Structure formats: C-alpha cells, structure tokens
C-alpha cells in the first residue's frame, strides 16, 4: 500500500482553520449559522420564492387567518392582512428589506469605520485626544436614539433610515478598530517588521489586519443585530420605511389597529424580527466563543 507520507508530520492548522474547527463544535451555533445563510438566500431570492407580490391585494379574502385555523386557506399560509395581501409573501419580501438592508448597512459602516479607525490609531497627540472625547460622547448616546435624531434631521424615509444607521454604526467600528490596532501595535512581531523596514501601510495590511479580523467580525455581528432592530423600530415608529413597503417593523405598525381582531398580522412580523435578531446574535456569540477557545489553547 502506497503511503503519501513517510514521516509522521505534526500538522498545525492555520488560525483561521482552528477557528473554523472550534466554531463547528457548537451545535446550536451551527444551526444558527445555517439559518443565517438561509436568511441571506431568502433575502436575495425573495421575488422567486414568494407566492404572491407583496402589494397584490386579494379582495375576496381579506383578513384571512393562518391556514391551520378553521377559517384559513392553504393558498394563504400565514393568512392575509386588511387589504388581502398575503402575509407570507410580505414577510419573504421584507427579508430583503429588513435583513438585507441591515447587511448592507453593516458592510458600508464596517469599511468606513475600519479606514477611519486605522488612521486614527496611527495619529497621536491633541488630534487623537479630541477624537477620543468625540467618540466617547457619540458612543454614550444609544444607537437608536442617535438614529432617531439623524432621521429627524434628514426627514423620514427608508433611504434616510439607512444613512442614519450607517452614521450611527461607524463610530462603533472606529472605536473597535482603533483599540485593536493600538493593542496589536505594541506587540513584538510588529516591532520586528518595523525593524525590517516596513512602512505603516504594510504593517497594517500584512501584520495587523489578519490578527484583528475576528474582533471586527464580532463587532459586525453585533452591529447587524442592532441594525435589524433599529430599522424595524424606525419602521414601527413610522420614521423609516413607509407603510405599503413590506418592511417588518412597518408591517407591525400597520397591523396595530387590527390587533384585537386579527392578531396574526402582529405575531408573524414580530416573530420574523425576533428570529433574525436571535440568529445574528447566536452567530456572533459563536464567533466570540470560538475566538476565546482558540486563544486559550
């Protein structure tokens, strides 16, 4: 029998593989991760998956209860709202609004925040102290309140909501990146590459970024769960997506008046927000936990 390896070689998985192996160990996190991918899939392919258009109204079946109810019908699995719109279709389309937009928001603010954070980590003196104070102030205001302030300035609407939340999330990324880089900068291996003559940019991209990636990713998952809640909350308060849009928060506020006769118009959108946030939080927890385990071993 041919052997590929003659010598018994000890293999050390790279940090990212170690992280992945550790991440796969937790079953609940795996479930959450798969569900996260499913949500991303739904967000992209919602027009194909949804049985009806989110704005189509079926006049002959207004306020139809969910299909497991005696009065329900299988053609409207989760029932319909007061205009006869299919709730399941609206929820599926809403995934690309509430969940998909929160993903976009996080990506934009991550890029901007990491760039600003890297620059600020390398500056010293008065400039850095002013920035620090400014960050302290901004971070002490809760994200939703800040988003409400910015929406109040820009005016209600889904686009303004997105910009508001991007602006709210940027300081958090700046803060995390800046602290991580400062911490990493003191370490010996950075000094070594500095002695080799690497400039700041090279040190950042080759030495520091691979080592702080996990911190940024963890922050990104927290930012995303905050973004989902914030988009939905602004939609609920009527400051975000306008009512006909199938955004989950706006759907909730649309159903309030009928809550007592048709509670399912409230149950399902709330459930959707809850599940999306829970999944994101679980994935974030999983990442944080695996980083800790990898570091400890």
């Amino acid at each position, binding site marked *: 029998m041919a052997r590929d390896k003659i010598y018994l070689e000890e293999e050390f998985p790279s940090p990212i593989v170690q992280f992945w192996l550790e991440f796969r160990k937790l079953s609940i996190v795996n479930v959450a991760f798969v569900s996260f991918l499913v949500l991303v899939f739904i967000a992209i392919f919602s027009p194909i998956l949804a049985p009806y258009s989110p704005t189509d109204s079926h006049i002959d079946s207004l306020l139809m209860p969910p299909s497991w109810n005696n009065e329900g019908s299988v053609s409207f699995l989760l029932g319909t709202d007061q205009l006869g719109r299919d709730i399941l279709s609206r929820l599926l389309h809403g995934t690309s609004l509430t969940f998909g937009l929160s993903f976009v928001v996080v990506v934009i603010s991550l890029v901007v925040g990491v760039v600003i954070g890297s620059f600020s980590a390398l500056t010293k003196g008065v400039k850095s102290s002013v920035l620090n104070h400014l960050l302290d*102030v901004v971070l002490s205001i809760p994200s939703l*309140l800040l988003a*409400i302030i910015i929406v*109040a*300035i820009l005016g209600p609407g889904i686009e303004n909501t997105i910009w508001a939340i991007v602006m709210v999330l940027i300081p958090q990324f700046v803060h995390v990146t800046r602290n991580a880089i400062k911490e990493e900068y003191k370490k010996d291996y950075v000094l070594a590459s500095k002695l080799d003559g690497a400039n700041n940019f090279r040190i950042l991209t080759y030495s520091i970024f691979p080592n702080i990636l996990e911190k940024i990713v963890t922050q990104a998952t927290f930012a995303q769960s905050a973004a989902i809640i914030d988009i939905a909350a602004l939609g609920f308060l009527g400051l975000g997506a306008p009512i006909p849009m199938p955004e989950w928060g706006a759907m909730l506020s649309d159903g309030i008046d009928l*809550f007592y006769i048709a509670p399912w118009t*409230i149950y399902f959108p709330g459930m959707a927000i*809850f599940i999306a946030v829970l999944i994101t939080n679980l994935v974030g927890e999983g990442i944080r936990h695996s980083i800790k385990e990898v570091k400890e071993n």
Partner: protein
Amino acid sequence: MLIFTLRRLNLFIFTIFLLTVLSFSLAFLFPGDALVNISGQVSANQEVLAELAQSYGKDQSIFNQYVIYVGKVFSGDFGVSMISDLPLLDVISTLLPATVELSLVALLIAMVLGIPIGFIAAIRHRKNSDNIILSIAMIGYSVPVFWVGLMAIQLFSIELSMFPSAGQISPVYEIERQYGILLIDILLSDSNYKWQAFSDATSHLILPAAVIALAPATIFIRLARTAMLEVLETPYIRAAKAKGLSFAQVVYSHAIRNALIMIVRHIGLQFANLITIAMITEVIFSWPGIGRWLIESIYQRDYTAIQIGLLVLSSFIFIVHILSDFLYAALNPLARGKKYGS
C-alpha cells in the same frame, strides 16, 4: 479623587458643549428659516420677527449667536412649540418627570431581577442551570421591544385584564403636582383617595416598566455573570477559600461585593440604552413622557421641540452617566487612580 473629578468635569463640559453646538446647528440644518426654527414663532409678524432677530443676535457673528443661544438655554428660555405655541420649558418640565419615573422603576426592576440571576448562573458555571439562564437571556436580548409591548397588552390587559393598557393614572383621581413624579406626588397629597390613587398609578406603571426592563435585565444577567466569574478567579478568593471558609461564606462576604462594583460601572451605559427602549414603550403605552412627545414632534415637524427635546434628553442621559461614574469611583478606589505602580 480630585484628578478624577477634574477629568470627569472636563468630559462633562466638552459633552455639553458638543450637545449645545449640535442643538444650535439643528436650527440651520432643518428646513425653513433658522430664526423661526430656533424660536418656534411660526406665525409671527414682521415686527415680532425683527424683535426676535434682535434678541437672538442675528446681526452678530455666528459665534456670538451661539453664545446668546447657550445663555438663553441655560436661563430656561427654550422658545415655544411650533405646533401648540406653548413655552417648551413648561412642556418639558411636565413630561420629563414621567419619563424619569418610568425609567428609574424599570432600571430598578432590571437590576433587582438581573443581577441575582446572573450571580446564580456564574456560581453554577457550565451546568444546566447556567445554560438555561444564558439561553433565556439571549432570547430576552433579541426580542424587539415594540412587539413585546403589544404582546403584553394583549395578554395582561385584554385577556387577563390585570393591568390597564394606556396612560399614567386613571383620570378620576385629581392629584396636585409638586415634584412631577406621580407616585411621590400622590403620597404627599392630602386627598381622601390617596391609597386608591396610589394603587391605580402603580398598576399603570408595572406593565410598561416590566416591558422596558426586559432587555436591560438580560444584559444585567450577562454582566453579573461575567463579573462574578472574573471575581471567582482572583487570588483573594483563593486565599479566602484557603482560610477554610465555605463556598457560601466566600460568595456572600467577598465575591458579591466585588462583583457588584464591576456592575455599577456599566449602569450609566445601560441607562442610556434603557431610555431609548423607554421612548418606544411610551409610544405603545401612551405614557405622557418626553419620548412619546419627541417622536410626535418628529411626525409634526415641530423643529423647535425636536432640538430642545434632544438637548434635554441627551443631557439627562449624560448626567446619569457621569453620576454613575462617580458612584463607581466612590465605591472602587482602584478606579480613582491606578496610575501608581501599574
């Protein structure tokens, strides 16, 4: 402690400066005339406008205008509401106490429930009860507050009819305003129906306060758990165990106190979070507080109200933040100056 106080004072002044600059510049950022936005006089005629321009120093430099504006804000001249034409100082001083009352009760509920549960989780680390507590905390942390509020109304107000679903007190009780905080006003009043009014106000308060407290309570569980785990790892706990104290003695006389200090540090930040949740909950429960009023002002584009409301609310959050920092420093000598020897 002096250096600590000076540093905090420095931060405080800087923050108030930033907040007033923000509030001042909002008048220019909002659509419409800056003078009208800042004073709230929508239907003023030319003469009144000229007078206003004079009093806000419109002919002077922008810096002088800012100084005049800050002077007016600190002397209590907030302008009038663009919608109701009422002086904003009066409006805010009736609304703010209701929010303070609601959020403080919610904070109390969150801490009283969250911290002991977190300690239990830490003591039973990596056992079943720890896992269950952590899962519940994760669920509570992920539930959107507006949904919980609606569910709570559906369950407790409509199906079980245990608590009223809206307002602060039933309108049949007439309570004289003294401090604005309703529960205290009731206790101080000499009405014949004092205790009925008190129990009515309490039953109005419980449901919204519990809804607000849900998310912060889960955060307190996690904070308390982490703090306790950290404390149980420290050398002085090992020393206490080596002395022969039982586990319960170690926890009661050493661990809890030290873990509590670490939690106090986070109260300020959690309070800010709690106020945001309170704003949404006020809308759902029609609570006559500043959060609901602010959100309504945004609908109605009452720019004067928005800028002053934001200034007052964020200053309030920041003052609580600084106070909790002081509390932490007073309790923990290490926070005051650990520069020596470290």
